Structures are given as C-alpha cells and as structure tokens.
C-alpha cells in the first residue's frame, strides 16, 4: 500500500545523502589538498597555458580540468580553493551562529530591557545594505581571511538573532514552559533544556544556510579582490580571472563556478534534510 509519509521520508533521505556526499567530498578535498591535487596549484608554465579539460582535443594528461591563462592547473586550484571556502564556512558560520543565537535566545526568553536593546540594534543593522556594509568593513579592517570572516560575523549575526528570537518567543508561550515554571525549574535551566532543544532545528538549518552564504560572500569578496592574497587560490578569484578569458578558455570560469554552486546548494539542502530527518515535531 502507498504510504505518503514513507515517500516524504525517502525524499528527505535523498536530499540529505546527496548533499552530505558533496559536502564530504568538499571537506576531504580541503583537508587532503596537498595529498590529492595532481599539480602544484601555483606553478605557472607558459607552455601549458589554456589547456582544455581532459575530454577535449588538445588536452595534456595530468591536467584533468585544463589550465588557466598562466598555465596553472584548474583542478588543483579548485581543490586548494576548497580550503579557504571550508575555513570561512566553519569559522564564520559557527561564530555567526553562536553570537546571533545566544542574543536571540536571551531577547526572546527574558524579554524586557535586554530584548529592547537587542531588537533595536538588529533593526539598525538591518538598515545597512549588506554588500556595501561588507566592502566598507573590509576597507576598515584591511583585506585578508580574518577580515573576511569578521565582516561576515559582524553583518550576519542579525539573521540568526531575528529568527531565533521569534522562535524562542513562540516556544516560551507553550504550556510546557509554564509547567517547568510550576515545577520550580530556574529560568536559565528552562531556557537551556526545555526551549533550546525546540529551537535547535531552526538553528541548525540556519547554520548550514549561513555556511553556504559565508562561502558565497568570500567568493564575492575574492571576485572584487578584497579577500586574501593571490598566493592562495580561491574560487572567487578563479572566477574573476576566468571571466576575462571566457571565450578562449570557458573551463577556467565554469569549473570553480560549479564547485561554488554545488557547495552552497549542498549546505542549504543538508540543513533542510537534517531538519526533516531529526526534528521530532516534523517527523
């Protein structure tokens, strides 16, 4: 017999496994880059410039995805670029999540002056256009990976704060919170062990989304040359360089773009998949 719930479960499963698979490849590539990349990502060789990918006529063995206009191996550069993307996703994503969620929990649960102050700051923050804000911050902080991460945290904590506050507010109205109060649990314990588990699915979904966003933001900043030095390959930097030779060597632009696209998509899908799988309320 056809069971609707089974179907949904299976779809959620595919979503989770496909995105999980890509993210695993992504993380392994970043961590094992020195071991697995076929070439030195920085080695230039003018004899090898603009080699096409392996399956196109005129390719060279060992250069699977071709080379760029300086003769650097595209695949190796993508693999090394994953390092920057992963670092930004993890550090910026987690820091943004921790700060934003903590403030959101406090504002939504304790209300009062804490909520008024936090909500006011969020309102002011949201009034800045984020891209301009980022460029401005980098101008002040200087370029470099730390600045990029700082900028993401400073701009994006409000995303967590707003959503987590709203969800905490919702949960606080539930009878189980009331019962915890009657039973004599402290406010802090009620927040951490009664409310937090119910807000956690939202936080996790936001976290993975934020990791994807962090990867994109880093790529954009690299694209406009505001991220890190040219010694370390980044996907954004590769896309920027590939843009100038799109007609002669499309692969220089297209492959990092695909890597970026799948990574960002996978982060978002992974979060959704986790939520569908583990949120006992949705299950």
């Amino acid at each position, binding site marked *: 017999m056809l069971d609707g719930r089974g179907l949904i479960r299976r779809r959620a499963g595919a979503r989770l496994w496909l995105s999980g698979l890509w993210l695993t490849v992504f993380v392994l590539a970043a961590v094992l880059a020195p071991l697995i990349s076929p070439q030195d990502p920085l080695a230039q060789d003018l004899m090898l410039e603009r080699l096409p990918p392996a399956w196109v006529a005129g390719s060279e063995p060992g250069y699977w995805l071709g080379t760029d206009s300086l003769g650097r191996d595209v695949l190796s550069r993508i693999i090394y670029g994953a390092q920057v993307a992963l670092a930004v996703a993890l550090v910026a994503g987690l820091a943004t999540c921790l700060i934003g969620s903590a403030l959101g929990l406090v504002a939504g649960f304790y209300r009062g002056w804490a909520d008024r102050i936090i909500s006011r700051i969020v309102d002011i923050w949201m009034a800045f256009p984020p891209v301009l804000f980022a460029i401005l911050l980098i101008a002040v902080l200087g370029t470099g990976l730390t600045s990029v991460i700082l900028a993401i945290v400073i701009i994006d904590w409000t995303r967590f704060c707003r959503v987590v506050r709203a969800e905490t507010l919702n949960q606080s109205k*539930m*009878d*189980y919170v*009331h*019962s915890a*109060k*009657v*039973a*004599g*649990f402290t406010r802090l*314990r009620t927040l951490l*062990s*009664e409310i937090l*588990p*119910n807000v*956690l*699915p939202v936080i996790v979904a936001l976290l993975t989304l934020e990791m994807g966003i962090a990867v994109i933001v880093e790529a954009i900043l690299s694209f406009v040359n505001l991220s890190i030095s040219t010694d370390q390959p980044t996907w954004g930097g590769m896309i920027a360089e590939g843009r100038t030779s799109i007609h002669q060597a499309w692969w220089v632009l297209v492959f990092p773009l695909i890597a970026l696209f799948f990574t960002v998509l996978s982060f978002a899908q992974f979060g959704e998949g986790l939520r569908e799988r583990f*949120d*006992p*309320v949705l*299950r």
Partner: protein
Amino acid sequence: MSGFLEIRGLSARLAGTGQRLLRAVDISLPAGSVRGLVGESGAGKSMIGKAVLGVLPKAVEIVEGEILLDGQDLLKVPPAERRRLIGAKAALIPQDPLTALNPSRRIGPQITDRLVDILGWEKARAASRALEVLAEVSIPEPERVMRLYPHELSGGMRQRILIASAFAAEPKLIVADEPTTALDVTVQKQILKLISALQARHGTALLFVTHDLGVVSKVCDTLSVLYAGKVVEDTTVERFFAAPQHPYSRALLAATPRHTDPAASLQPVPQAVIDAAMAEIAAADAAWSAHG
C-alpha cells in the same frame, strides 16, 4: 477548620490599566477534598489557579490578600523560597496535552527531571516511580512509553502522562485547569474518572477549574462560583444543585445542558441577572475604593 490551601481576600489587577481581575476572593480547600471553580470565560478561574502556583502573568499584580499553602503565606516568602514550596507541595494538570509536554524531549525525563533536579531524588528511584505512576494511569508498556516522544502518542495518552506526572511527587495539592476540554468526549469521561480515582487514592487536595457544571457534580465536593473575578457563591455540591443561592448561580445552572430535558436546557443567562451581578460588583468596588 483551616484548609491545606487557604486563599483570603485575594485581589488582583492589571498593572497597566488597573482593571480588576480578582475581587477579594476567599477560597478554602481542606486536605484531600475537591473544589470546583466555575464561571464563564474570563471570570478569572485560571487566574486563581495561576496565583496559587505562582505563575501569574507579569502584567497581573496582586493588590492584597493571602495565599496560605500548608499554613505558609506564599505572598510573603521570597520568590526562590516560594518556587521551592510550590514545587514540593503542589502540581498542575494543564489544559492542553498537545503543548504541555515538550515536543522535543522523551517522556521519561519529562517526568523524572523534576523529581531528580528539584526534589533531589536518586535517578533510579525517580525512574521506578515514573513507571509506577504511568502504570497507575493505565499506560500500557510504560518502559517503552518512557522512551517515546510526545508526538508518538494520542491526546488521551498524553493527558494520562501529564496526570501521572502531576501525581509522581505525591503533591498535597493539584490544580487542574480544564484538564479535559481539549479532549474528545469519550476520552473526557475516562480522564475525569482517572483524576477522581487518583485524587481519592492519594488523598490529594484538588482545585478543579472548569466551566462544566456536569463535571463539577461528578468530581467535586465543594464549589466556588466566580463572576467577574468575585466569588458569588461558595457552597457544597449537594446544596448547589439542590438550591443555588445566588441569581447568577441559578442562571448558570439553567444554562447547563441536561440530558433529561434538552428543550428546557441551554437557557442563556438573562440580562437582568447579569445587570444585578454587575451592580453588586460595582457596589463592592466602590466600598473597596472608599476604604483603600
């Protein structure tokens, strides 16, 4: 004789507008007895329950009065001490079993946490006590149920679990705020019987909030009729159903559906009665303002 729960002259109002919510409420509940709290929606029934359990909304302030729990005035002890007193001696059976259990935690810890963390029981003892009370409310396979999440259980089962949880620490007082309104009719009867049986067996005092006089006649010993935050009649169940004293009580009784004579039941409360009750309250308020 003074009761286990003794509410004396309790008045409360909304902090912002000053609107009166409770007007000099007196309620006495001897150990082991059941008092019904009836009245129409907004009369302040839940407000009294919340005051007793120390969970009034922030917007509500108590103007005067005493709430004596086992001889101690809850309004005079510091908040932390009050939390401890209430946590140790009283419990709540909530209205809506769907939201009264934490959806993302398993049933077991939701019953035992309170015993372990607040009352200082040993884990093993709390777990065996939880199994015991779950069995007492006729939950099949209590060991398995302890490991389930609320969404895996029906509304009736969840309400049984909440009842078990309320009785787990052997409280001397339980406040039940419309514990059956969220359930369907067939389940309602079972749950009522269950609460009655446990109350009798454990000798718990029960403050039973409801707007259903039929329920009152089955479960309660005494009742307080509340109108606009004022107790307009305080009597025993026999006397109330034989001869209600206050005009509002009579109207309330007339408005209750009766199976024997459906046509004669469901009379709306006459406007004259409402006007009279309001006038009475206005007079009391005037006297109150004059002396305060």
